[in-house]
């Protein structure tokens, strides 16, 4: 346990030093703030549920941005250190490989969580400061959105580690990471949509569709946040989907958690078998 924390602490230290933390936080805060104030222009500031609008726009932002950031910081974690030669020295110390991996995970997740919390929190804080009325339900939806965003980030960090533990070169890891991002964030939904259009509801059952949605962490996240509460699903235009959705929020959360844990376990396995 102590080794994990030592490695995590070093990861955070490095993140602070090479400006990763600063850059991510500023990026997220900047985008969140502009979405909050520009995005509320059409609904007007008198909207009772200003924060709900923010939740909808921020979760859409998260789907694109957080997986990208997570993959960017994670794809290099193992293969990069091996290529630079720092891993050889680290593993000669009294520390297990799974401890190194888990320590990095904790460190990277802390960086991501910090940036998300601060960046998105800035948006909510600014909104509250302008005097918008925000009820408890909206606050809960907002907090849930941040929590699930961090979980989504965890899933993609874990996927990035798996890639990093399997490939031989950094360049390959980078290419695969970009590919994974494209597939999960853009192509998967388009393909799914195309499939549904072609199928016209003939063959594919609802449960099959549900399974397909759970197979993509980004979709699980989207469903979880956009259909999660009544007010938000109304704003997101997903009210129809929400009524028909047979996936409970807990099932969606479980899918996200599995997307973080399974790749992480596989990455640990691949890393432990790797010859240096």
């Amino acid at each position: 346990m102590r080794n994990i924390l030592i490695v995590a602490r070093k990861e955070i230290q490095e993140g602070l030093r090479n400006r990763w933390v600063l850059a991510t936080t500023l990026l997220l805060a900047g985008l969140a703030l502009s979405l909050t104030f520009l995005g509320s222009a059409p609904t007007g500031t008198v909207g009772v549920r200003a924060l709900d609008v923010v939740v909808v726009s921020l979760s859409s932002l998260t789907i694109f941005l957080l997986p990208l950031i997570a993959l960017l910081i994670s794809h290099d974690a193992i293969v990069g250190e091996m290529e630079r030669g720092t891993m050889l020295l680290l593993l000669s110390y009294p520390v297990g490989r799974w401890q190194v991996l888990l320590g990095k995970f904790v460190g990277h997740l802390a960086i991501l969580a910090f940036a998300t919390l601060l960046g998105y929190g800035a948006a909510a804080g600014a909104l509250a400061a302008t005097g918008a009325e925000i009820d408890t339900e909206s606050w809960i939806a907002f907090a849930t959105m941040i929590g699930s965003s961090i979980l989504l980030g965890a899933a993609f960090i874990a996927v990035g580690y798996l890639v990093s533990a399997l490939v031989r070169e950094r360049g390959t890891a980078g290419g695969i990471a970009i590919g994974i991002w494209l597939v999960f964030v853009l192509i998967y939904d388009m393909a799914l949509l195309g499939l549904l259009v072609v199928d016209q509801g003939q063959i594919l059952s609802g449960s099959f569709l549900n399974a397909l949605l759970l197979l993509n962490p980004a979709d699980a996240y989207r469903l979880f946040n956009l259909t999660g509460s009544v007010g938000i699903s109304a704003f997101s235009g997903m009210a129809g989907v929400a009524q028909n959705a047979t996936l409970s929020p807990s099932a969606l959360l479980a899918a996200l958690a599995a997307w973080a844990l399974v790749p992480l376990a596989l990455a640990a396995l691949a890393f432990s078998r790797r010859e240096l």
Partner: protein
Amino acid sequence: MTGTVEIRNVVKRFGKVEAVRDVSFSLPEGETVALVGHNGAGKTTLMKLMLGLIRPTSGSIAVLGDDPAAGQFEARRRLGYLPESVSFNAALTGHETLAFYARLKREPNKSVPPLLERVGLTHAANRRVGTYSKGMRQRLGLAQALLGEPRVLLLDEPTTGLDPALRQSFYEIVEELRGRGATVLLSSHALTELEERAGRVIIMNRGVKVADGTLDELRRIARLPTRIRLKVTDVGLANVPNWLGPVEGWRRINGHMVEIDASPERKIEVLRRATDEGAPVEDLDVVPPTLDELYAHFLLSQEATR
């Protein structure tokens, strides 16, 4: 089973390549041992095996009584390792880097400044490692290997990239540790690099141990001839066998010089003749076999038996 490192019949294959073939040796306490061989001779592989970073295909390894690959970290806490061309994360300072490694070895933070002082990096302790020169990184690498008073030090090509003054102080530190009972294993690609510092030399070639012993022992085994050079007068030059006696293996070089390859037991005899009264010799040089020649001899003799 008294050594700190015991290696028995170890074989390591990477796919079809046999990096280490049936190597056995034991390293005792308080000894500096040099592992010498070309690139690809299996030196680094042997060190990785001792660290437990890779597992032997067959054979057994024990370091401080433990199997290094078994996941027991107790032995690793008493082990220092300096990899070949060591590298560190460029974003952290020298002090932060060393403090990180100290925490992993459960060494108190206050052990860091004295170590930096010892390798002469105090002035650069708060600079990022990315700004360090090659020699400074190598010194930081040595500092981390010295954390926690190691009982076994594995140093992979430690002096490459160090200037002569640093090399000197490097060997002083190593000697001091050895004096306190540590086992020091140095690897090098040339015997001359070691400048006769090692008490014992293990020569590796293509994964096979070809020689193991002190430098004197190796010299004796190799029976390399001593080269004797004589500056001879014109008269003497005409009838060398007459005054030198029946010596095989002599040749003329640069006009007035005669060079003789004298085997160890014939050396004195040749010298006596050459310095005999009346011998037409004006000057003489005795060149003992160099470390490079000794090294080449063992490599060649192993190639010949293959």
